[in-house]
């Protein structure tokens, strides 16, 4: 699992590459835990190369979402593969999280 951070203005984009499981979730958790993230208006998660997510991966996003919302930082997912989106759907997270199809939609969200 590789996590690449791309800051641009008031937006921080994270590119996820690989499989997000109980072993690799700690890498992403450390990135989302950085205090400076709360200075951005928007955190975008580019999921194009995210090929798998387990409950441990979902847990990373769930554990940070309220903290980001409280700081008025939007968390938006885009470019999500169907099989990964399906995992969000199984738990009903697709209606609780901001998931859009394209980067343009994410920028406008």
């Amino acid at each position, binding site marked *: 699992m590789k996590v690449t951070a791309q800051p641009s203005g008031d937006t921080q984009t994270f590119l996820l590459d690989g*499989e997000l*499981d*109980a*072993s690799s979730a700690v890498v992403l958790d450390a990135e989302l835990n950085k205090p400076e993230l709360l200075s951005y208006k928007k955190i975008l998660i580019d999921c194009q190369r995210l090929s*798998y997510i*387990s*409950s*441990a991966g*979902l*847990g*990373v996003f*769930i*554990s*940070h*979402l*309220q*903290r980001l919302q409280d700081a008025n930082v939007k968390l938006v997912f885009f470019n999500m593969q*169907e*099989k*990964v989106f*399906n*995992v969000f759907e*199984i*738990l*009903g*997270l697709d209606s*609780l999280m901001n998931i859009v199809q394209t980067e343009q939609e994410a920028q406008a969200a």
Partner: protein
Amino acid sequence: MTRHLRIQCSRQNLQQVRDFVRDFLLAAHGNEVLVNQVVLAVDEVVANFIIHANEEDASQYLDLLMQLRDHNLDVEIEDHSNTLFLPSNVAPSPDMSEYIRQGRKGGMGMALVSRIMDKVVFFERNSHTICHLTKQLG
């Protein structure tokens, strides 16, 4: 079609488990979303055995047996440690809005497993914990 895999109890081996399940199912079933669901269910159970039942003790090991007959999938995961690990067979139904409010990290794995598989049973055999998963594919 039957396949077997033995792994040590380290979370570093979860990738090997997923590759094993994925290769087994993709050879017989082309639906990528369905295959990913089963991969996820097995990954969640194996991760629970490794992390919670064995506390990542790499001297312990798990056996994974997969069998596919006429679209009926049976998966048996055997924990060879002598500590019994028998989660409730009642399907959990987490309130995800509350999980978000609380910032919870865990507690969703078995909910995913129970929603994906047709049947999930934990039981004891020869002082070992067995998890048996079944699902009708297609």
